[in-house]
Structures are given as structure tokens and as C-alpha cells.
């Protein structure tokens, strides 16, 4: 009951004037970011961080979170109408969604995707509201060794799930950590690794790194394929056929479960959730041959899963301060910029903030449902913009935005530099997601590690003598060993190799 009252109070915050507007603004930008290929939620949220500087922390996070879950809705439209994923989590939707569009049933695909997304998204937020406080309470007892163990566990899961080679995953993690060390050491104030550059006194800006490594490299990669504009399909009626409702809702139910489970695991990105949902539906279907030819479950399930995933991925962020995906890492960095400590104290120390954001996500999902059902035709027009016109504009907006972060031309140059680095890393299958993860957590990893050692009587053993940290680290080591020796990695689908969500 306690959380229910807090949630009601949260609605009070979320519905108050400006916050409602920021929620609307956030989900609108999210829709745009989702629809436009080449501009994903990482860049979308990162670019908007400088805009939030003057805002209340609540309004800022309401807006950024809106971009995140809003983009999951938007991506569907491009996938269905022009067979190009608007954001990477919607790749799977292209398969059956575009087939449905070819049969003149784009509306039904978009309609069921919107309904599924809403159900998946809202269920995940209900879970956040129910589980969040309990989990946070538990995590309040954690000390530096436990947090260090949790971060290591997250990292290991990420490396185990992303990319082909464990070694390259570890390389990426180490690079991210080293990059995070550049600049002033938070404990002693010593400036490290600035190589004589004054611009590096404060280290690399997270926004710059994220935009460069993800957004720019994405555009560079897309340039290699010949850019052809496709005429978007006609939408038609929005409602599925009568006999399709039952299987669709079953798919939505399963998609919700799959998305939420995977949302809790770092590294299990939204695309893995939608892929898993798709294969589950195909396996359970009476006639699997329909898949790939416009099966509505193939749209309903995956689209639900990626929305449930985005909602659920906020649970580890709010309770443990652990980002499970690059976009959540960007939101985490916004928490820090606004003076909030993501983690278990959030529910007790900033209840107005926490519940306000949670409540806003209910509202945001309702707005998105309206945007995606009655207003869908409006958005479909945006999906029709040809990519050859779009990518120069996305580049100039991004370049302008990176200047605005610190009003520094050095940052603009660094973004381009990291874009090129990101391009090569993608080509070489060095997981960028691991760099982002360790970079954003770098100072926490270092300080929790050093604090643990400083309080320890017997060095590194402190991590293994405390029950919780030793259990978590034990599991982490087990996962790492399993993934090294099982060779599962080579058999995994290439599609899951390095994606944004």
C-alpha cells in the first residue's frame, strides 16, 4: 500500500504543469528518434542532456526517459512501412511487419504493435513500482564490496552476451575503464592521462563518447550500403482481423514476460528480447511456415518485448544504479549531472523524484498509445523522408549538439574522432556497449574497489569473505568461465552482435 500512496503522490508531481509538457516533449522526440533511421535513443538522449541543464532533475529525467521508451514505439513504423529498422530493436519487426505491409495490412501491424507496446511497457512500469522499493531496501545494506561485485557481474554478463570473442569484450571493457580515468582523480584531485591537453583536465565527456561511438559510427556504417529511398507502404485499417486477436494477445503476454526478464540482465539488449520473442512465437505456432509471410504474432510479440525490456531495464538503474544498456547509461549520466545518486538511496532520499518519474512513464505510455493509434498517419509521413536527405541533417544536428554540451570545439573534434574509432570497433567486433558501460561506471568501479581495499584487513579477500559479494562474484566468475569454454558465442546469431539498446 505504501508504494501505492507514493505512486499517487508521484502522479501529482508528473501531472503538474511543466512536467506533463516535458513528458509530452520527451515521448515526441522519442517517436522521432525511433522513426528516423541513423538516429537512435543513445544519440537522442545524449544530445538532449545539455538542454536539461536548466531544468529540475525530475523534469529532466522525465523527458530523457520519455525519449528512451518513446523510441521503442517509433522504431516500429519505419520497420513496417519501409523495411528499415528505425532503431535497432525493431530489426525483427521488419520480417513479418513489412510482409504485412506488402499485403496492404500495415495498419494492422502498427495497431497491434502499439497495443502490445503499451501493455508491455505499462506492465514493466508496474513491476518497477512494485519491485523497485523492495529491491532498493535490500540494496541499502550493500557496502562498496557488494557494489563492486554487482558492477563486475553486470560487466561479465554484458561481455558474455555481446560480440563473438570474450577477449575482445574484455578489451573493450578495459578501454572504457582507462578512458574514464582520464582527467581529475575524484579522491586525490590528481590529473591523470591528460597528455598535456587542458581540454582533458575534466576527462572525456560521456555525451561525446556515446554520440561518437554509437551515433556517428552507425551513420558511417550505413553509408556503405547504397542508399535507396523506398516508397512507404499504405497503412490501411488499424485493427487486426477478428481471428487474430487471440493469438496476438498470447504473443503479447509472452513478449511481456520475455522482455521484462531480459531487461533486468545487463547486456541482454532489447534486440535479444525481441529476437527471443520472435523465435518463441515461431516455435509455439501451429503453423510456423506463416512466419516471414506476415504472421501477426511475429509483430505483436517482439514489439511488446522491446517495450517491456525498456521499462524493466530501469529497475536495475533505480535500485542498484546499474545501467543494463547504453541508453540507460546515458540516463545514468544525466542522474549524476543533476546531482542524483542512482542506486538504492534514490527511493528513500528522493521519493518525489523517483515516484514522479515512474508516474510520468504511465502517462507517457498513454500518450504514446494515442500517438500510435489515432495519430499514426501523421508519423508515417516522417518515415517517408529519404535517407539521403536525412543523414546530412542528422549529422549537422548532432555536430551542433555536441558543441552545445560544453561549448567546445574540442568536443566536436572528439566526437568525430570517436565516430571513426567506433566505426573500426564495430567492424572488428569489439563491443562498444562494453566501453560505454565501464566508462560511465568507471569512477564508481574504481572508488568502490579502492574503498573496499582500504577497509579490508586482508586485501582482495574482502570480496570473497562477505556473503553477498562473494555469491555475486562467484556467479560472475562462473558465467565468464562458462562463456569462455562453452563456445556458445560462435553459434550465436550475428544480429545480436553489437546493438544500441
Amino acid at each position, binding site marked *: 500500500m505504501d508504494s501505492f500512496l507514493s505512486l499517487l503522490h508521484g502522479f501529482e508531481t508528473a501531472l503538474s504543469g511543466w512536467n506533463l509538457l516535458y513528458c509530452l516533449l520527451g515521448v515526441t522526440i522519442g517517436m522521432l528518434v525511433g522513426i528516423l533511421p541513423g538516429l537512435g535513443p543513445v544519440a537522442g538522449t545524449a544530445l538532449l542532456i545539455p538542454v536539461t541543464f536548466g531544468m529540475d532533475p525530475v523534469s529532466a529525467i522525465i523527458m530523457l526517459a520519455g525519449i528512451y521508451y518513446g523510441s521503442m514505439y517509433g522504431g516500429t513504423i519505419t520497420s513496417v512501412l519501409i523495411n528499415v529498422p528505425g532503431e535497432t530493436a525493431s530489426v525483427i519487426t521488419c520480417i513479418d511487419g513489412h510482409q504485412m505491409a506488402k499485403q496492404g495490412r500495415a495498419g494492422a501491424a502498427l495497431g497491434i504493435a502499439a497495443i502490445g507496446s503499451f501493455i508491455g511497457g505499462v506492465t514493466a512500469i508496474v513491476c518497477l513500482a512494485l519491485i523497485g522499493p523492495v529491491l532498493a531496501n535490500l540494496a541499502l545494506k550493500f557496502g562498496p564490496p557488494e557494489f563492486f561485485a554487482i558492477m563486475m557481474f553486470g560487466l561479465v554478463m554484458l561481455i558474455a552476451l555481446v560480440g563473438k570473442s570474450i577477449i575482445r569484450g574484455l578489451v573493450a571493457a578495459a578501454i572504457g575503464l582507462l578512458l574514464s580515468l582520464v582527467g581529475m582523480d575524484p579522491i586525490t584531485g590528481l590529473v591523470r592521462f591528460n597528455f598535456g591537453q587542458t581540454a582533458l583536465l575534466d576527462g572525456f565527456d560521456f555525451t561525446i563518447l556515446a554520440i561518437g561511438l554509437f551515433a556517428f559510427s552507425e551513420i558511417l556504417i550505413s553509408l556503405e550500403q547504397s542508399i535507396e529511398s523506398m516508397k512507404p507502404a499504405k497503412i490501411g485499417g488499424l485493427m487486426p482481423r477478428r481471428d487474430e486477436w487471440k493469438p496476438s494477445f498470447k504473443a503479447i503476454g509472452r513478449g511481456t514476460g520475455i522482455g521484462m526478464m531480459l531487461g533486468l540482465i545487463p547486456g541482454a539488449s532489447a534486440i535479444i528480447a525481441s529476437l527471443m520473442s520472435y523465435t518463441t512465437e515461431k516455435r509455439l505456432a501451429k503453423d510456423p511456415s506463416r512466419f516471414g509471410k506476415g504472421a501477426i504474432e511475429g509483430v505483436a510479440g517482439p514489439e511488446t518485448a522491446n517495450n517491456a525490456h525498456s521499462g524493466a531495464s530501469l529497475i536495475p538503474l533505480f535500485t542498484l544504479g546499474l545501467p543494463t544498456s547504453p541508453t540507460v547509461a546515458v540516463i545514468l549520466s544525466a542522474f549524476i549531472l543533476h546531482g542524483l545518486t542512482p542506486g538504492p538511496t534514490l527511493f528513500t532520499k528522493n521519493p518525489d523524484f523517483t515516484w514522479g518519474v515512474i508516474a510520468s512513464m504511465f502517462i507517457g505510455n498513454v500518450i504514446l498509445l494515442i500517438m500510435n493509434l489515432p495519430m499514426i498517419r501523421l508519423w508515417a509521413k516522417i518515415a517517408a523522408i529519404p535517407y539521403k536527405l536525412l543523414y546530412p541533417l542528422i*549529422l549537422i544536428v548532432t555536430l551542433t549538439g555536441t558543441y552545445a554540451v560544453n561549448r567546445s570545439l574540442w568536443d*566536436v573534434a572528439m566526437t568525430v574522432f570517436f565516430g571513426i574509432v567506433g566505426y573500426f570497433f564495430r567492424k572488428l567486433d569489439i563491443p562498444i556497449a562494453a566501453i560505454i558501460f565501464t566508462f560511465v561506471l568507471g569512477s564508481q568501479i574504481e572508488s568502490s574497489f579502492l574503498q573496499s581495499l582500504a577497509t579490508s584487513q586482508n586485501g582482495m579477500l574482502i570480496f570473497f569473505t562477505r556473503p553477498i559479494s562473494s555469491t555475486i562474484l562467484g556467479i560472475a566468475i562462473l558465467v565468464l568461465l562458462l562463456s569462455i569454454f562453452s563456445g556458445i558465442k560462435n553459434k550465436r546469431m550475428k544480429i545480436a552482435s553489437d546493438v544500441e539498446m
Partner: protein
Amino acid sequence: MSRPIAGIIASIAILGVSLIFLFQSFQYPYRGSYGPGPGFFPTWMSGILLVLSLLCLIEALRGKNQSDEPWPVGQGLRSLLYVLGCLIAYVFLIRYLGYIVTGMIFLFLLLIRHYKWYIALIPAVVAPLALYYLFRNFLGILLPEFRF
């Protein structure tokens, strides 16, 4: 460039970076007044990266677990290099020509590949101006001005 070679070059490059960081780490105090100092973590991390890059090199030499992403050739490579060239030109020119002029040149150069010049000119002129005023009036951020 065949694939193992790319992997080998990358491993050696990362090896070099880890060496630079390792030597730099030695300049920071390894021990502080209470436990480990500011040099402790960097030394270990760059050391670990050094070992990992060696392992990565071995993996590449054996051709195990290598990336199967194709490298661009022909038209794909040309358009990639062209856009990269435009990006680098943008970074250099903006210091002198300011945001608006550089932005216009940048957009025009990118759009002229796909559109007739008089069509390319419209977004190329409008977008930087719009962004300039948007950033100035709504965010209070003045983008770099024209100066020599």
C-alpha cells in the same frame, strides 16, 4: 585488406595504447596515505589491457573468433571516405569560418551527391540558420561566429 590482418593491426594498435597508458601510470603514486593511491588502478588496468591485447593478437593470428563484417569497397568505400572528409573539413573550418558558413558548406557538399545543386542549396542554407537561431534563442548557446 583481408580480415585477420585487420584484427592483427587493431591488436597491435591497442597494445601500443596500453603501453602508453602503462608508462604514464608509473608517474602517479601507487600507494596513497590510506591504502592504494591514484596510480594503483591505472597501473593495473593498463597492465590488464596490455595482456588482453596480446591475447587478442594471438586470437587474430590464429584467425579464431574473427569478425565477419565486410570491409567497404568501391562505391561504399568512396561515399564513406567522402563523408569522413566532409566531417574532418567541418571540424577544421568551423574555427575560422564560424558555424553558419561551415554548416552550409558541409550540408551542401553532402547533399550535392544526391540532388541537383539548386535543390541541395535549400536545406543547406536553411538548416544551419535555423539551428543557429534555435540554439541562440531557446538554449542561450551562441555557436561559433565567423572570424579570421
